[in-house]
């Protein structure tokens, strides 16, 4: 089926196969269609059907609340049922020549392990190696649960045969509950990606500031992995703020300590505990890390005050935490919007 997309600047044509979501087909063709979550919640990939027929795989998708006009639909949820012509009210360009073009792939779930009572880590052994950029995510579809979920990669390597993820359990969140169940290990999962624009490249040549809540630390781990591999923190500063409710909810503290110990001069890592005073054991067990009580964006704001020159910020976590951090960075720190990177999942 042929898809014709009229964007604000030009037209694009590409083909889809039966059952293929229009967004994924366009992205796989190297066309940078607008999207953020890619999984039906954010509404960013909305388009308007001009001609043709589409089928909506998820008519109850929360992202549909952003649809205002007749004929609008979410490209991440819809498949074409014949040749279609669409309008997208954005400037749309081809991806950079060096970009990791997203594609569908498949892998096996391995290495599932609880990091805390409600956070699980796992790996996907890919059928064929993939490239991704630090800070990107994959859409993952597990058996028995309809639809994709976006999970950020924790690791970073080129030609990765294995992707590491970390997921927080959400009650009623079908995919996350399934991952905590017995059926997960050894299962085959479908993936699409890599996606996301909150990416880090060493050519950035700025200090980086990471503010993450809960499992939002995943993408930051990938950024730290790349930064450390390339000795980025020999030259540029790194400030990482990781927010959790209590000390028992924190994870990856050994990995974070290792990164800090590699670059003790320029890399600072602070764990913010929102709901309890810092227990004395925290600093004794993890002397490389700083611990502080408070909401993660407040702790970050205290530490960063007056240190925002030449900074690129990466944000991830629950939407209220990300919004609060954006507010601080825009209004108080006066960072420019292009130096605040995050992928909005809702």
């Amino acid at each position: 089926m042929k898809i014709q997309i009229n964007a604000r600047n030009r037209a694009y044509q590409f083909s889809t196969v039966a059952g293929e979501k229009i967004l994924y087909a366009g992205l796989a063709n190297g066309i940078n269609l607008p999207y953020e979550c890619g999984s039906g919640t954010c509404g960013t990939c909305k388009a308007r059907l001009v001609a043709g027929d589409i089928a909506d795989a998820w008519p109850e998708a929360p992202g549909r609340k952003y649809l205002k006009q007749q004929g609008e639909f979410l490209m991440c949820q819809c498949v074409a049922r014949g040749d279609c012509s669409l309008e997208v009210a954005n400037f749309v360009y081809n991806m950079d020549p060096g970009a990791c073009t997203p594609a569908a792939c498949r892998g096996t779930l391995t290495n599932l392990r609880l990091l805390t009572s409600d956070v699980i880590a796992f790996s996907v052994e890919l059928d064929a190696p993939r490239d991704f950029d630090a800070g990107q995510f994959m859409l993952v579809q597990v058996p028995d649960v309809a639809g994709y979920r976006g999970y950020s990669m924790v690791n970073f390597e080129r030609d990765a045969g294995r992707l590491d993820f970390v997921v927080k359990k959400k009650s009623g969140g079908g995919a996350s509950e399934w991952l905590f169940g017995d059926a997960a290990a050894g299962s085959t999962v479908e993936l699409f990606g890599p996606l996301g624009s909150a990416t880090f490249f060493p050519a950035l040549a700025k200090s980086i500031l990471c503010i993450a809540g809960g499992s939002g630390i995943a993408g930051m781990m990938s950024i730290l992995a790349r930064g450390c591999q390339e000795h980025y923190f020999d030259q540029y500063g790194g400030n990482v703020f990781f927010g959790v409710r209590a000390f028992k909810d924190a994870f990856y503290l050994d990995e974070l300590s290792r990164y800090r110990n590699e670059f003790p001069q320029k890399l600072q890592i602070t764990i913010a505990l929102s709901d309890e005073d810092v227990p004395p054991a925290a600093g004794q067990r993890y002397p490389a890390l700083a611990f502080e009580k408070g909401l993660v964006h407040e702790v970050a704001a205290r530490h960063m005050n007056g240190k925002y020159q030449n900074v690129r910020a990466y944000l991830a976590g629950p939407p209220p935490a990300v919004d609060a951090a954006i507010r601080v960075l825009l209004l108080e720190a006066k960072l420019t919007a292009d130096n605040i990177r995050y992928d909005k999942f809702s």
Partner: protein
Amino acid sequence: MPSNGMRECDAGGGLKVLVANAGEEYFACQAVCPHQEVALCEGLYDGSVLTCHQHLWQWDIRSGAPIGLAETPLECFKVEVDGDSVYIVPPGALNVGELFSGIAEKTLSEINGLAKRETFPQGGTLYNVGDPAEDFFVLESGRIEFVIGRDDRTSPAGFMLRKGEVFGWAALLDSQPLRIAKATCLEPSTLLRINGKQVLKVLEADPGSGYVVMRRLSSLIARYLAPSGAK
């Protein structure tokens, strides 16, 4: 309204506007983000820059000019303050678009004087490939489709336009006398038709404004020609 605060107001007739305070002054603009129709009153405002919280598009509250990531300007309204009341004056399409916003008022009103408002039915053709490019158009309402190529070898050119956007701008160039696309109305549309040569003459008399318009025109053209990955 708090100092350096903002509020969404109902201006009557279903028109919602965002009214913002900046010290002694008040400004008014469209109430929803032109990107995803998010309510701008939920965004961030520091007394000069308005930010949509959804994707961080930003604008100068005084002019509606886009800053940073924003791809299009905000529609702004002229404001008159009388005691406790703020009145707004809706703008014409010419003031909304990027090409002419912010140029000298006298020049803008002269260009406005050259504009003829025309209404086209659905399916109406504005011009064909090879037609002389004498006039350019500013979209007031409706939707326009562009097709490039000749005879059977045609292909849609894309181009979604918003209110206030200019097309057929070959009429503003010296060496592009012919249309390179066919323009058809996809729905009933209202346009301002403006003669390119006459506008150039007006701009010659006000080189300051002319310079602004030419800079905007060149960046507009560059944006349509932008290579992959460019924003």
